[in-house]
């Protein structure tokens, strides 16, 4: 297939949607840098799961040693003489795992229920709308805390709690899109050809709205990481000292005694990831949203 490219608009005629999106996504240096950052965080997580990260429980020095020029102590040590850097690395594994797990739970629920409500309408739509209205009427943090207390503490119960409470925004979006799309000509045509509803939803409408889910997933990951930090700070989240929330919680008292390095280290680690996820989220929207043209 012949590709014709015009310099002015960067449009390649005949290019597939996926390729076009990828090209647009990677066209900006800032996005590429952020994608690299996220890849590094994911790599750290993988290294953590295969046991290649240094053990954060190992004592590498004295209590509260300030940063110095050795790898283990480059961000200083904590009360037990453990490396802040190693704790941040282990916290990265926790944060990324939570972000991905929560997204993996919330996006399918949001997309699934949104598609059903939007396509079928009627009582089914009413029931789903009522259901998410009830959930959203309860303050988010309180709801997660309540679920965590019931299910017990730990990473997976926190992920479950966050996952089953954070799908509502996406569900509303998808519902709205399905309501629009179900009356369009291409859907009418397929219906006339005898296609059944599940096929129409899955094969024809979903590909046209899935970009919303992808954008939402990037933001959901970000939100989940932030929520974990808040919940752990409140004493509900991860309790074994290997999460950023725990580190921030510990740092509150330390800061007043002049021990700044644990908080600085973890804040930078968190800021960099949040920033990268935000930039990539925006870039994904630019790349995938058909309303935004070159």
């Amino acid at each position, binding site marked *: 297939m012949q590709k014709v490219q015009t310099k002015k608009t960067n449009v390649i005629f005949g290019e597939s949607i996926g390729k076009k999106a990828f090209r647009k996504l990677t066209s900006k240096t800032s996005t590429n840098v952020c994608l690299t950052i996220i890849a590094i965080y994911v790599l750290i997580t993988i290294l953590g799961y295969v046991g290649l990260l240094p053990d954060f429980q190992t004592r590498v020095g004295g209590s509260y040693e300030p940063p110095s020029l050795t790898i283990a102590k480059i961000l200083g040590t904590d009360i*037990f003489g453990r490396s802040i850097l190693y704790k941040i690395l282990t916290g990265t594994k926790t944060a990324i795992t939570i972000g991905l797990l929560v997204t993996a739970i919330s996006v399918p629920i949001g997309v699934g229920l949104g598609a059903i409500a939007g396509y079928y309408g009627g009582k089914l739509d009413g029931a789903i709308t009522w259901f998410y209205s009830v959930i959203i009427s309860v303050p988010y943090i309180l709801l997660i805390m309540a679920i965590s207390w019931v299910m017990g503490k730990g990473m997976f119960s926190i992920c479950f709690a966050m996952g089953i409470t954070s799908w509502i925004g996406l569900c509303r979006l998808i519902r709205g899109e399905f309501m629009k799309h179900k009356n369009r000509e291409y859907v009418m045509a397929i219906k006339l050809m005898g296609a059944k509803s599940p096929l129409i939803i899955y094969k024809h409408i979903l590909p046209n709205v899935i970009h919303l889910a992808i954008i939402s997933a990037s933001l959901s990951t970000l939100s989940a990481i932030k929520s974990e930090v808040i919940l752990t700070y409140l004493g509900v989240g991860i309790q*074994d*000292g290997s999460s950023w929330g*725990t580190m921030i919680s510990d740092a509150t008292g330390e800061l007043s005694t002049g021990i700044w390095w644990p908080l600085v280290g973890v804040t930078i680690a968190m800021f960099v990831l949040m920033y990268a996820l935000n930039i990539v989220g925006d870039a994904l929207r630019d790349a995938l949203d058909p309303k935004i043209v070159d």
Partner: protein
Amino acid sequence: MVISRKWLTILATTALVSGLGGCTKNKDSETKADGSKPKIFNYLRTAAHKSLDPAKQFDAASAQIVSNVYDTLLQYDYLARPYKLVPGLVEKMPEKQKDGLTYIFTLRKGVVFHDDECFKDKKGRELTSDDAIYTIKRFADANVNVKSYMLIAGFVEGLDAFREQTKKLGIKKTDYTKLDVTGLRKIDNYSFSVKFNRENPLAFFPFAFSGMSIVPKEAVEKYGDDFAKNPVGTGPFYIKEYSRRGKMILAKNTKYFGTYPSEGSAEDKAAGLLADSGKKIPFLDEVHLPLIEEPQPAMLKFLKGEIHWIGMNKDDFSRMAEKDKAGKFILNAEYAKKFNMYTEPGLYAGFLRFNLNNQLVGKNKALRQAFAYALNTGKWIELMRNGRGKALKTIVPHPIAGSENDIDFEYYTQNIEMAKKKLAEAGYPGGKGLPVITIDYRSSNKDTRQDFEFVRNELAAVGIKVKANFQTFSAFLKRVESGNFQIIDAAWGADFPDGENFYQLLYGPNKIPGPNSSNFANKKYDELYEKSRFMENGQERFKLFKEMSEIVKEEVPLILRYNYLGFGLMQKNVRNLKRNMMVEDPYKYLNLGPEGKVSH
């Protein structure tokens, strides 16, 4: 309705003027009749009280108010150490009668209740022995006191039977005038007798407990359930402003009978604690007690000079204090210029308790001994408590008679080799095959989590793996009561300063739901406890304590940890503050000097 601009201007101006008036008129700075400024002590409450009805309260927040509004028959000497009882509402210590079991309590004459609507002409009447008997009966009434009767259970002749009767009759049918307590007899308006079941050196402690503060029958009857909000006592203060979740203001009872202690140690004298000897108390005109639940804002207020006295937590201590070369705790130069600091050992024992009903830790003594050898309590105190405490060798805290100060006894110290040996003896060499053991904690705050991390690291060094279950205090209590745990992070604060109150924590019949949450049952230990329980302190009793401590060391139903050292700061103008762990809120003894200014 449309309000014209003119009217809005008038309304706004009126509001502004009245507001300014409110700002300029500070009721705290009003002068007294003699022209002097009132002495206002600013302190705080860290929790809202549950009830101000003495018999219904058993929490520190309620006791903070109750102990200042009411009086007890006996009280703890404010300056003396070790802690000892002295007369409160009685004019002298109860006098023993010939039978050796009966004591005469003689009330002070001229003690009057606070003025209140419950009395004739709203004037507080004089305290009589009827009030004391009524209060003791009310304390024993099962319909009124569900929490603290165990402090006196089994002590007074006929009182347990009385309690049973009240339980059967219920609150509506219970009439104290018709229910007799054989051990309580009125002699005259100012004296009554109490007959105890046996010779018992612990017998007087309940009479100093704030729950047995003397209440007037009229107030209880007039206010009913609202008596919890309308306290009427004989105490050094009355409630001027009541606000459960706001600021409580206590005001001086000018008719109070008490005087400041006239005896104290040489150190007390050197510290200026005897400057007000024998003077009429209270010295303060008002005590302001806002509710400030979070420690950080409380400390900020203290640093700004808005409150006079505050306790120090670990982070405050790290920032403000240090140990000098002699090992003495002192304030940093920056803070020493502004504040004074005190230290006082607590009446507290902290420990890790094993559940002896648990199949793993309960049935394997060598495993428990491995735990005991693996932990370095001294290091834990240094690191996690800034050295503010002392490792315990026996279960009795150091300030109480019968502690390690009185008996020659050595407890476990960290010995990794022995820990590994015991672990192998337990059937888990190097920790192989040993399941992960859960420790239950009673909070999930930062300090608790770090405590656990310390313990986990120490145990990991010998091959023992543990995990933590952090939970709320109420969830923790439920878990303990259910007996469904392996190890708990536990502690006990003294109900009264006697070794018995700590050794009872391992007495067989006190097993769950009682205070023996280890479910420890050792026949020899129980016999020794029963023998020592009602003995006077002395070598004979201490010998039994030592034997019990040896059993505790051998069987390891718990691992002893530490007794904390209480620290606090006060503004430079605070006088007469000597931390007394049995008189937690000693406002009636406090005074304010001229230097230093605390704003309101």
